[in-house]
């Protein structure tokens, strides 16, 4: 933020902070406006996550700087705003994860695979917005009416994923050994194997556990 303000050109995942110096990121953008025109457009959703991150970073850094101007020591100014700084960093990381997911789609050649992965990507992106609506509304990236649309769209996506859910986890390609249990077996024969598994429990090595004769039997005879 500081380097961008002083006009330095940034690269990599923080290049969006270059906009900070040209004031394209405002702490309180005009209410009612919305950056996202089409909630199904992954490109504009990635832009919304980026603006959200930039908005939170600008807000947190401005708080630190105003404390510094009021004469606070650097460490105290930093500590006093660390909650905002952590939230800003989480938003930055969230933007990176969304961006990488969207970028990955361009490498997928199989049409059917691309379709379902795009659905998952949209679900991840919209679900992330639905869990952080305050940020997106305050930053003027979404209009209130869009929140309802997003919630409905998420439910629509659940229906699309439903018939593909088992195949999507099969694609992770974990053997039953790696899953380390019987509940997620590939063949789905859960109950038979749960019963077999339980029978091998160490407590079942004897029909009557030693503690019965040691403690319960003597107790019964005394009562």
């Amino acid at each position, binding site marked *: 933020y500081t380097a961008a303000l002083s006009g330095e050109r940034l690269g990599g995942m923080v290049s969006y902070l270059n906009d900070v110096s040209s004031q394209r990121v405002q702490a309180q953008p005009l209410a009612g406006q919305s950056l996202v025109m089409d909630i199904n457009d992954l490109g504009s959703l990635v832009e919304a996550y980026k603006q959200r991150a930039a908005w939170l970073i600008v807000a947190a850094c401005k708080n630190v700087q105003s404390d510094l101007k009021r004469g606070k020591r650097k460490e105290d100014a930093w500590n006093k705003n660390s909650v905002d700084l952590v939230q800003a960093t989480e938003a930055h990381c969230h933007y990176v994860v969304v961006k990488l997911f969207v970028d*990955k789609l361009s490498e997928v050649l199989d049409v059917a695979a691309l379709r379902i992965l795009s659905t998952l990507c949209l679900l991840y992106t919209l*679900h992330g917005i639905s869990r952080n609506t305050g940020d997106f509304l305050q930053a003027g990236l979404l209009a209130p009416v869009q929140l309802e649309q997003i919630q409905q769209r998420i439910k629509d996506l659940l229906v699309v994923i439903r018939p593909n859910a088992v195949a999507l986890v099969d694609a992770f390609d974990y053997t039953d*050994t790696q899953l380390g249990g019987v509940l*997620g077996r590939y063949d789905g024969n859960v109950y038979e194997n749960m019963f077999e598994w339980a029978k091998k429990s160490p407590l079942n090595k004897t029909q009557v556990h030693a503690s019965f004769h040691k403690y319960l039997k003597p107790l019964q005879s005394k009562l």
Partner: protein
Amino acid sequence: MNPDLSRERAAASFNPETITYVLDGSPERTRRRREIENLVTSDPEFQHEDPNFLSRSERYELAIKKSALMVQKMRQHGISDPEEIYWFKSFVHQGRPEPLDLHLGMFLPTLLNQATPEQQDRFFMPAWNLEIIGTYAQTEMGHGTHLRGLETTATYDPSTQEFILNSPTVSSLKWWPGGLGKTSNHAVVLAQLYTQGECKGLHAFIVPIRHMSTHEPLPGVTVGDIGPKFGYDETDNGFLKFDKFRIPRENMLMKYAQVEQDGKYVKPLSDKLTYGTMVFIRSMIVGDSALCLSRACTIAVRYSAVRHQSEIRAGEPEPQILDFQTQQYKLFPLLATAYAFQFVGSYMSQTYHRITGDIQQGNLSELPELHALSAGLKAFTTWVASYGIEECRMACGGHGYSCSSGIPDIYVTFTPACTYEGENTVMMLQTARFLFKS
């Protein structure tokens, strides 16, 4: 095959194999990964009782036995590519930790990255052949993520050309390193270096802690297991106390910083050179987040297709739980997250390997951003994955609490990733510092 699962698989709109290739990176890597997995699953020597039925001591012994077998089998099969070693190891130990984790994952790489050629000649082959079994002792009982707070000292004595290692307070005891309690006979120890009366900051030292043949602790060294934990039963996380323990000057890792015989300190070219190891470890942890969340999702989604419960339409048979919107709303966003983290994990790994080449040519320009990004992503993904695995467990109802589900083991083994290798909030603030400077 359970009929519900057969129907589910028949209804899918895509072939799972095509997405497996995307996750692995190519069909060839999928083939090779499966080949390596088969080397383990088809080997009778690697078969054993369910660890859930074993005591802690038995689980530790089983892990040691498998680690010993793993080292021999890897050589027999000629497995030496780092990624293939990682695959082989995770198939042998099924995602669980093992006492040689830090020997393979930290001790050997530290020798490769921070030892001089002379030091590598002395230590690397014995360590490769497990005559030396090493760990990495940085964290202390009272100090951890904030490295400047570490108390262990290494004071140079020019008269004998030795470093004197000391644990000045009880809070300075090395605490937590895996394999330290019972397994290792050496450790890379991070200590505050004092020479010519000045503190030069944290440096790494190769320290013998047990006799090479009897395995008894050496005089001046107190070492042991820190006791039972939430999980990690297979690993002897240990403690280590030094009482003015002397080591030769040549045991300080001197590729970057040096102390000459008269005690003169020669500082490293850049303090960012140790960033590389941290970035490597954190990108591995991002990969673990994806892996563990994917496993938990696999269990929860499949079981939700098998389990029938309650009623949607009166009088009709119990539907699959996966038909309830609430169950879908619990699991599908987590499934999408698991995929997102799989792609983040591979991006971090590729970026690290790309930048490693630059580091070796002395170009450290991209390292600060990757160091900051890896800290933030480590925190972000481990927090989300740890929460998500517990969500998957609960989505399996009562059986999710049984060890037969496999999810309790996944959770207790994964959740410490939110605190080890840097506590998550501190990691977030480390990234925030970079964003602030940017």
